[in-house]
Structure formats: structure tokens, C-alpha cells
């Protein structure tokens, strides 16, 4: 189907020796810290600070991390739920609002889309205390709902802007054809626009996932124990007895894991989507 397109892409990115070396250097620089964390997660506390590459791997750290002291299972669940709900709410709304911003004319013109972006310029440190007070008043402190709401406040504008860029880039013909063929605005959006910009929506979803998944600051302030997410749980490894590096590494690995998994899964879909969208 799209074989000719792919073949051309590959020949253009031919692997010359210089390229190989460049890629190798990048891979080492990027991967070394990850490898170090991964190794540490399987070390015993005594081995953590040694530079020895050879050690006896152990699953002890995982047992401790998922045990009663750190409750990593519950943290993981919190992170999954908060991130999942955030994306489920944010991506459809962002797609719809991106479409509206891209296709409709508003009084005031582009003021609205810029205003949406402007909300992101407010530093978190400035609004965290009012937010805390507001959430306490609403009885939402230490709930996942609070984190979803906070995540939405920056994921939604971000995703809207990103998806808007993709919608701006596709010609209006298709929607006009759909309108004449009998589709309502919403129907045309679902049947025609979304499939065509699917790669863009997926890209926005990936970036939104990373933002929500890694969100630390708000989660640190707004949760205590019940709704604590993975990034915050990292802090629990810093105890009065000293920093449990091997536990931190274990938690770090649990944080990285889903992202690697998702990027691997999505990458295939993503590349296919890119070539599918290349129809003039």
C-alpha cells in the first residue's frame, strides 16, 4: 500500500559510518543514566554506591517498594487513573475546541487562542496556595479528582494548541464536501477531520500523557497519602535514615516503564498515520 513511500524514506536516511558514530554517541549519552537507574534498581543497598558493573541482581527492592512501607502498587494505580482520566477528558475536548478555534471566526479574532496560551504563563508557584485553599474548601485535598482537574488546566490548553496546528494545516475542501454530502459540523469533524489528523491527535495525546504522568509539583502539594502519584512517591525514599537510592531507582523504573511501553506501541501507529495523512 504505502510501500513506495516508506522505501523512499529509508533510502533518504541511509546509514553512513559518520551517521552511525553520531547515533552511537547520542544513544550512549541518552541511555547511560537510564541504564544506571535500571541497574541500581536491582542492586542491594550495599552495592548502590559501588562502581562495580558486576553484581548479584536481586528483586528485593521491588518487594520493598510494593510493600506496606512504600505502597508502590497504590501509587501506580493513582498515577494510571489520574493520567488516564485526564487524557480521556482532555483529548476529545481539546480536539473539539481546536476545531472551533481553527474554523470559526470569533469576535476578537485570535485573542481567544492567545488567551488560552497565556494562561500557561502563570507560574505554578504563584497559584499553588490559592489552589490549595480552593481545593480544601471543596473538600478535594488528597483526591484523584483534584489532580485530574489540575492536570486538565494545563494539558487541555497544551493539547488544544497542538491539535489546532494540525487542523489549520488540512484543507477545508474535505469538510465542505462532507457538509454538502449531508454531514453536520460535528459529524464532519468525527468522520473526516479526526481520521485525517489522527497522527496529530495521537502526538498530542503522547505529549499530554508525558506531562500528566510526570506532574510532580501540584501532586506534592495537593496530596498526602491516598491520592499520591508515582513522582511524589519518589520523595518517600528520602528518609531520616538517609536516601534509599535503590528504592528511588526502583520507583524511577516503574515511572519510566509505561512510557517506554506506550511510545513503542504508539510509534508504529504513529508512522503509519503520518504516511496516511500525506494525501494531497
Amino acid at each position: 500500500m504505502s510501500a513506495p513511500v516508506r522505501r523512499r524514506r529509508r533510502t533518504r536516511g541511509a546509514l553512513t559510518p559518520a551517521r552511525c558514530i553520531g547515533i552511537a554517541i547520542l544513544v550512549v549519552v541518552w541511555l547511560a543514566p537510564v541504564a544506571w537507574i535500571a541497574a541500581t534498581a536491582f542492586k542491594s543497598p550495599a552495592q548502590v554506591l559501588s562502581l562495580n558493573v558486576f553484581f548479584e541482581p536481586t528483586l528485593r527492592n521491588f518487594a520493598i517498594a510494593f510493600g506496606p512501607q512504600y505502597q508502590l502498587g497504590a501509587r501506580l494505580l493513582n498515577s494510571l487513573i489520574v493520567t488516564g482520566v485526564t487524557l480521556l477528558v482532555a483529548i476529545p475536548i481539546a480536539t473539539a475546541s481546536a476545531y472551533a478555534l481553527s474554523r470559526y471566526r470569533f469576535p476578537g479574532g485570535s485573542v481567544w487562542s492567545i488567551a488560552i496560551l497565556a494562561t500557561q504563563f502563570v507560574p505554578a508557584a504563584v497559584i499553588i496556595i490559592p489552589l490549595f485553599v480552593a481545593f480544601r474548601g471543596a473538600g478535594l485535598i488528597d483526591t484523584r479528582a483534584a489532580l485530574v482537574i489540575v492536570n486538565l488546566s494545563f494539558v487541555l490548553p497544551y493539547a488544544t494548541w497542538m491539535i489546532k496546528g494540525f487542523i489549520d494545516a488540512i484543507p477545508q475542501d474535505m469538510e465542505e464536501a462532507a457538509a454538502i454530502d449531508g454531514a453536520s459540523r460535528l459529524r464532519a469533524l468525527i468522520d473526516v477531520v479526526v481520521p485525517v489528523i489522527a497522527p496529530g491527535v495521537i502526538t498530542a495525546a503522547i505529549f499530554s500523557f508525558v506531562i500528566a504522568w510526570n506532574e510532580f509539583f501540584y501532586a506534592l502539594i495537593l496530596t498526602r497519602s491516598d491520592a499520591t502519584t508515582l513522582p511524589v512517591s519518589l520523595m518517600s525514599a528520602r528518609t531520616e535514615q538517609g536516601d534509599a537510592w535503590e528504592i528511588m531507582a526502583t520507583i524511577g523504573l516503574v515511572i519510566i516503564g509505561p512510557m517506554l511501553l506506550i511510545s513503542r506501541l504508539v510509534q508504529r501507529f504513529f508512522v503509519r498515520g503520518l504516511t496516511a495523512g500525506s494525501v494531497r
Partner: protein
Amino acid sequence: MASVSLRNVEKRWGPVVGVARQSLDVGDGEFMVLLGPSGCGKTTTMRMIAGLEDPSDGEIWIGDRDVTELLPRDRDVAMVFQNYGLYPHMTVAQNIGYPLKVRGQPRAERDNAVDEVARKVELLPLLHRRPRELSGGQRQRVALARAIVRRPQVFLMDEPLSNLDAKLRVSMRAEIKHLQHELKITTIYVTHDQIEAMTLAHRVAVMDRGVIQQLDTPEAIYNRPANLFVASFIGSPAMNLLNGALETGDFVAPGIRIAGVGQGSRPAVVLGIRPEDLELCDASEADAVLPVYSFELTGDATLATVAHGEERICARGDRHLRLTFGDTVGLRFARAHCHLFDATTTQRIDGPA
């Protein structure tokens, strides 16, 4: 099937007039072509009929319904876009069937209709392909099939052939004409290509700067252009236009006198004559003897361009004709095909022709 009627329709964007206030009636089953240079308002006019653009003023009627306020989907029109407007993620069959699907037709009926239409435009073997796997001509066929599958009351076509190569354009032109004749669906077709307009239309509306300059059959537009714009826009090579004066029925310009082309006297007129209505002849029989400026062999004819002061006059001669630069040739003007226009109003002056 229905007639289409624009009543005092106007389109403005602030102070800019896209389409001037005017009316246009397209008869039931008629093939109407809107012809004009880019920016003349022809596409805007069509988009207003489709409902993709709201008129600033006036009413649009399709059949006995006032559709001015209706959404595109409620107007029962179908449109073919210049770059086809196909849905890239759907197969050919899904593309063609989409109008039926949206309107909730059951699957079996839909498949039958798609098959029937696909057969008509010879797409049957390609139904499972996607648009990107098709050639330009095939994509155009898909767009056509999608338009006719619903049997709309009105077809709208916005420069449907302009993305095709010259050869394909000729065959698709014939195909469109045949389809329209067969289906007898009222069709409005926008183009800047005069050949398309002449070959396809029952009637042509020549537009310029938002105003319909002439609305008539292709023959009448070609043979009796209403003003200088139409005269110069229609025909290839273009009609020769000579500035001069009318003296008791004779057209007079420096070195040229053509007797009996008009009536009375006027100080400033333009004489128009098509290259094929000029005969190359001996000096003794000629209305004007002028030096050769250039000549071109087109295969079926020789186009001779002669210089008349700053003006160039093109005459179409026999294909065996050979000229040399700097020679002089005699030109005889076919009286019946001389067109006179007022140089200031640019309107046609009706003489005996």
C-alpha cells in the same frame, strides 16, 4: 431536478464587492457555465448556491424552495471540488457511499447504488483502493461518482478539470457532458477555460469583477460578444481589437479603411475581428497592407501576426502558407464578422452585421 434562481444576490466583504447585485436563472436540466478570469466572482457565486458562503443580500431558490437560509446538506445539491475533496482515509467505495451513509441509507441499498455509479464512471475495479493510490483522472471520477450517487437536484462543479493534464481533460470533458445529458441534472460549472465553457455549456455566463458581462449560448457569446471584455476573453488566439473611428459607416484607422461595417459616424470605436475572419490576400484586393511581425505554424494553420503601428493583428491562414519576416501582406476583413465597440463604454455597437 430543479431550476436554480439567484434573485438580486450580492456578496460583499466589508467594502469589497465579491459578486455585484444581480440575478441569474438556470433552467431545469440546463448546463450553465460560469466563465471568467480568477477573482471574477464565479466561484463565490457557486459557493453561495452550495451554501458554503452566505450572500450579503438577495435570495437563492432551488426549484420552488427558498434555500437562502438552509445549510448545504439541506439544499439537495452535490459538488465536485477543484482538488476533489476526497476523504483520504476512506476507500473509493466508502467515499462514493458517504453521502448515502450520512443520510442513513441501509448498507445493502448503499452498496447497490455505489456499484451502479461506479460502473457508470468505470471505477468498479478500484472500489477498494484509497484516493492516494489513484491517478488524477481516477480521483476526479470518484468525486463525480460521489456527486451523482445521491441523484441531487443540482450539480455544482468548481473547476473540476483544472488539475488534470491536457489530454485527460479532453476525455473527461466529454465524459462530464455525456453524464449530464444522461442524468439530465441541472448543472452549474465554474471554469476559467473558455474551451470547457464553449464545449460543455447550454448557456455561458461570462463574469468579470463580480458582474455577469454576458449571458447567452456559446455560439452567441462567440459570434456576438456584448462588450470588449467578452470579445477579448473568448477565442484563441484572441480577437484582434483595432482602435479607430467610424466615418459614415466606414471604419478608419491609420492606413486602414474598411467600408460598410457600421452606420453613422463616431469618433472613438474599436473594431474587433477574429483571426479566422481575416483573409490573407494580394495587395490589390486588400483592406490593409501591413508588414509581417511574426508567424507561427500550429499544424492545422499558420498564424500570421502583422504590425499596425503599436498594434498587432493576428490572421489565421492556410497551413501551407509560408511567410518571411519583413514582407508585407494584404489583409481582407470579412464584413459579416466585424464587431464594433464603443471605445469609451466598451459596449457593442450594433451595426448591420
